[in-house]
């Protein structure tokens, strides 16, 4: 097997710190010790593979998947699409992309969500797909509503879609959130603000993509995702002194 080399170490500066007093739940759930850093090995560089056989016909269509094509969800129809790339700018093919979101009123289909916005009987709120040979993915869904949440006195989540991405390696594992261009709530949200560098936070904001919108049908937003890359060199097979 070709050794593609270790994973490029994470640049922790672009990720949110564990402890953020404005996101109150992080206070008791944040480790105080530093992380133990080490070069990746087989356990981080390998990972499960997900074939198209696990996918159902409606899995990447959140407008229709909850009713298996019988009735559409309520809300503003949007296409969310983009590519999964690695840090070397190569497409990550066969990546599992899973999303979940609130309905158009800002309510999740979950027993613990008690917000009084109504449930949409035709909307479940989850979708998944596998990237193609260019690393490309797309979902048809509805624009999720903003919703209030108990944190500081009057905090609201901006419109967002949660993304879970599984590339080729367990060490590439990433969960993040996509925001929508032009939403004024993004810069008032303590969860968005856990990403301390504004230019990094802006990388989570998907622009409106009119070229991909279908007239008289749906708008489109483009959201590209970058996973960790690997550091293959011609010297990689030599044993390294530790």
């Amino acid at each position, binding site marked *: 097997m070709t050794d593609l080399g270790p994973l490029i170490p994470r640049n922790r500066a672009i990720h*949110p710190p564990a402890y953020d007093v404005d996101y109150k739940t992080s206070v008791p759930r944040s480790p105080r010790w530093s992380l133990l850093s080490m070069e990746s090995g087989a356990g981080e560089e390998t990972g499960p593979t997900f074939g198209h056989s696990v996918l159902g016909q409606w899995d990447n269509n959140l407008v229709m998947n909850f009713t298996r094509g019988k009735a559409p969800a309520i809300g503003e129809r949007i296409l969310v699409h983009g590519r999964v790339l690695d840090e070397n700018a190569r497409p990550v093919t066969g990546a599992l992309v899973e999303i979940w979101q609130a309905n158009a009123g800002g309510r999740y289909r979950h027993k613990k969500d008690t917000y009084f916005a109504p449930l949409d009987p035709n909307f479940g709120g989850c979708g998944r797909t596998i990237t193609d040979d260019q690393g490309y993915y797309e979902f048809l869904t509805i624009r999720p509503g903003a919703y209030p949440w108990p944190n500081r006195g009057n905090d609201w989540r901006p419109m967002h879609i949660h993304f879970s991405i599984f590339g080729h390696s367990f060490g590439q594992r990433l*969960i993040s959130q996509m925001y929508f261009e032009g939403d004024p709530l993004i810069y008032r949200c303590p969860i968005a603000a856990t990403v301390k560098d504004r230019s990094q936070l802006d990388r989570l904001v998907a622009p409106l993509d009119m070229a991909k919108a279908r007239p008289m049908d749906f708008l489109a937003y483009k959201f590209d995702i970058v996973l960790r890359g690997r550091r293959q060199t011609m010297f990689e097979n030599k044993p390294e002194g530790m």
Partner: protein
Amino acid sequence: MVQKLDRLQETPSQTAGPYVHIGCMPTYAGNGGSYDIEIGESPIAEGAQGEVIEITGEVRDGTGWALRDAMLESWQADASGLFPGQEGADPKVTGFCRFGADAETGKFTLRTVKPGAVKARGGAMQAPHISLWIVARGINTGLQTRIYFEDDDLSGDPLLNRIEQKNRAGTLVAKKTGPGQYAFDVVLQGDGETVFLDI
């Protein structure tokens, strides 16, 4: 101006939030039937080689409270130390599992086979272990750690040996509680805080 590097930067992480199970474990979230096939239901199929074991535990916060909303993922080698996809690996071991803390008690259970030792780059042997990834509301970037086993020889493991405070190494070691039974708790903060990894 120096030449420009044509690298990309990793996408910043955001918390998985309280509803991660809607997207990753719909049945657990009460939305069974969302998908015909759910992912990561078990790391082994019937007939997997090796000793079948059960690891039970909980994920506790800095106050000692067990999280009810955590989602964990595990990834491991088969009984002979090979990962799925590697030549000769046990076809009955998928190696990957997703599991949630119980919504009432906060307890989780992982049923799998005991992994074998895995060779590190350069030839050193890593003691048998399972890689673990933990996300939840309040965890801004998913936490990586490992489960080792107290009845194995851990003395030569490169990662455990890298922990300077030897009294913390035990946080990565599951306790044997009976035949095929282990206990492993994750402590996010405070006394006995788990060693989390940046690998």
